[in-house]
């Protein structure tokens, strides 16, 4: 069979599942040989061009650098860093966002995990740090870090998302900013620590207790009320993040982990847990992490990060190089369980095809989805829509705005003027391949 015939056959076998060139999710997995065939075709053309033998670059001809004790990325990957919304550390909260558009997979490396601190990053001496559990317990107890290291540990992969992530999409106009600026306040890591329930078995629980207040040891002394049921479900006192001690910006030496609940409730620098009958109505729960509604009321105790997804490639700021085969890639997650499926559209939501989900698909964790796409060079609008195992669907923008409203004016991209945004995100690709943020 000639190369031309091979390519033709390959195209016939790539099942189109939705308009504007979306292909069956298994095309890349099962048609690998066919793609190889088409690559050979290209090679045949190039082999007709006269060329010198391949040379050796300098790094092939001289000894490399010494090995550092702690690895840092290549200088050529120096752009893969967080942004800092408060570089001069003036008296206000500081947000550092994860560069999703420059990353792949489902785990956020520790140096790139998003962080928000409200009064700087504390330098906590682990030898002096303690965790106190008191209130409606039978025996108030205090633990050193050494004490806690003796308890049975568990690991789990889970995302943490700030309640303010993506809220600049409440803007009445699409803000032209990259996935990092728009969606960078969510990250996913493997966390290791002691179950809070294990420690509560030791303190005993007064039946009147319905909530616990968790409080940090840093200057902000941030405190949040959490339903006590969460302590007996999946709450952890975490000491390790992707296998190494927590980063200072992520809570060193210990933090509360309440999987699926808004980031602010995962109290960092944890030093105190008080079991109580009623929530504290602290500043962050009674005022800050609320969601004003079009009817003048506001949601309080939103807690859960609801099912959500966004495409990381291609996304704002990239230029698609020309017509041809590409892989759309993105992240999906739900604060209540596993992702069941992700649908992708390349025609602004008129037709949809099902994306491939990367194993393992874990509860309350990032799930990477990928979708083969043949771009024909004409304008396209790509979207993703996630569904979780409990039947929750990510709302379209129209559904979301009908329920939650939008701002009257365009906000700063870093401002938190509402909370908990999870609608479908749209990237528009023009005929030059330039990717813009659009609303459909």
């Amino acid at each position, binding site marked *: 069979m000639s190369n031309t015939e091979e390519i033709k056959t390959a195209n016939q076998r790539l099942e189109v599942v939705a308009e504007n060139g979306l292909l069956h999710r298994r095309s890349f997995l099962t048609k690998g040989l066919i793609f190889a065939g088409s690559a050979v075709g290209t090679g045949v053309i190039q082999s007709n061009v006269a060329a010198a033998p391949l040379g050796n670059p300098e790094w092939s001809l001289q000894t490399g650098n010494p090995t550092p004790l702690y690895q840092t990325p290549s200088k050529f990957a120096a752009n893969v860093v967080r942004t800092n919304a408060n570089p001069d550390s003036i008296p206000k909260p500081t947000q550092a966002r994860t560069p999703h558009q420059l990353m792949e997979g489902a785990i956020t490396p520790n140096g790139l995990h998003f962080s928000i601190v409200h009064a700087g990053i504390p330098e906590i001496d682990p030898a002096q740090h303690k965790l106190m559990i008191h209130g409606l317990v039978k025996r108030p107890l205090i633990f050193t870090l050494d004490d806690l290291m003796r308890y049975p540990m568990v690991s789990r992969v889970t995302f943490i998302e700030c309640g303010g992530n993506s809220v600049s999409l409440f803007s009445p106009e699409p803000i032209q900013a990259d996935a990092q600026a728009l969606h960078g306040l969510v990250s996913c890591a493997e966390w290791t620590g002691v179950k809070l329930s294990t420690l509560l078995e030791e303190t005993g629980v007064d039946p009147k207790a319905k909530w616990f207040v968790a409080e940090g040891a840093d200057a902000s002394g941030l405190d949040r009320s959490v339903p006590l049921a969460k302590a007996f479900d999946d709450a952890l006192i975490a000491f390790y993040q992707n296998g190494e001690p927590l980063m200072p910006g992520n809570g060193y030496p210990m933090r509360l982990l309440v999987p699926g609940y808004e980031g602010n409730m995962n109290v960092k620098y944890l030093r105190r847990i008080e079991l109580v009958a009623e929530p*504290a*109505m602290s500043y962050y729960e009674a005022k800050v992490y609320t969601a004003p509604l079009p009817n003048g009321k506001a949601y309080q105790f939103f807690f859960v990060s609801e*099912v959500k997804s966004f495409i990381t490639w291609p996304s704002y700021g990239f230029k698609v190089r020309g017509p041809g085969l590409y892989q759309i890639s993105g992240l999906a997650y739900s604060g209540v369980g596993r992702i069941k499926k992700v649908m992708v559209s390349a025609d602004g939501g008129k037709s949809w095809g099902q994306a491939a989900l990367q194993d393992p698909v874990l509860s309350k964790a990032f799930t990477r989805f990928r979708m083969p796409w043949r771009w024909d060079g004409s304008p396209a609008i790509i979207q993703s829509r996630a569904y979780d195992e409990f039947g929750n*669907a990510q709302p379209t923008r129209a559904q979301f705005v009908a329920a939650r409203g939008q701002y009257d004016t365009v906000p700063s991209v870093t401002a*938190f003027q509402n909370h908990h945004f999870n609608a479908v995100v749209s990237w528009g690709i023009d005929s030059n391949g330039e990717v813009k943020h659009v609303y459909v």
Partner: protein
Amino acid sequence: MSTYKLAMALAAVITVTTLPVVAADDTPNLGSPISQEEISGWDITVFPNGKGLPVGNGTAAQGSEIYAAKCIACHGDKGQGGLGPTLISDRKRQGIDEAGETIANYWPFSTSVFDYIRRAMPWQSPKSLTNEEAYALTAFILEENKLIPPGTVVDANSLPKVRMPNRAGFVLRFPKLTPPIATSK
């Protein structure tokens, strides 16, 4: 009592008295008991019903002087805000934009004002205010926002009784509206 019965009785006593030890073997049991006095050093959360409010009191007149010395740089000479958020304002909320929210038009509980000042302010030296100073600043902010009558002495008794205008302005998402919910498509 037969030897058998005696043995059973002893076994029962032993079982009862050793049960807690047996249970403790299931856990490293390393938590150290802590007294109420020790707890009090960290136990600073104030609740809407006044639980956690300390002894002491303050008035807006006292708070005004502390404000001028310790708060004005970030929050402005009239509490209008600057680097820090607005503390005193009669503006109305607009739309769903948090930027319009103020203590007077949004905060549901007066106790949160005292709690936040005491734990997190002033920015450069949090937890440095005395309880009297925290009461005085709370009184100043509430009075300037016309939420308490002039001259009110703010203390553990009076503060929880302050009715905030937006007290009924919230819909609890947890637990009834938290997914999975039947309305999902």
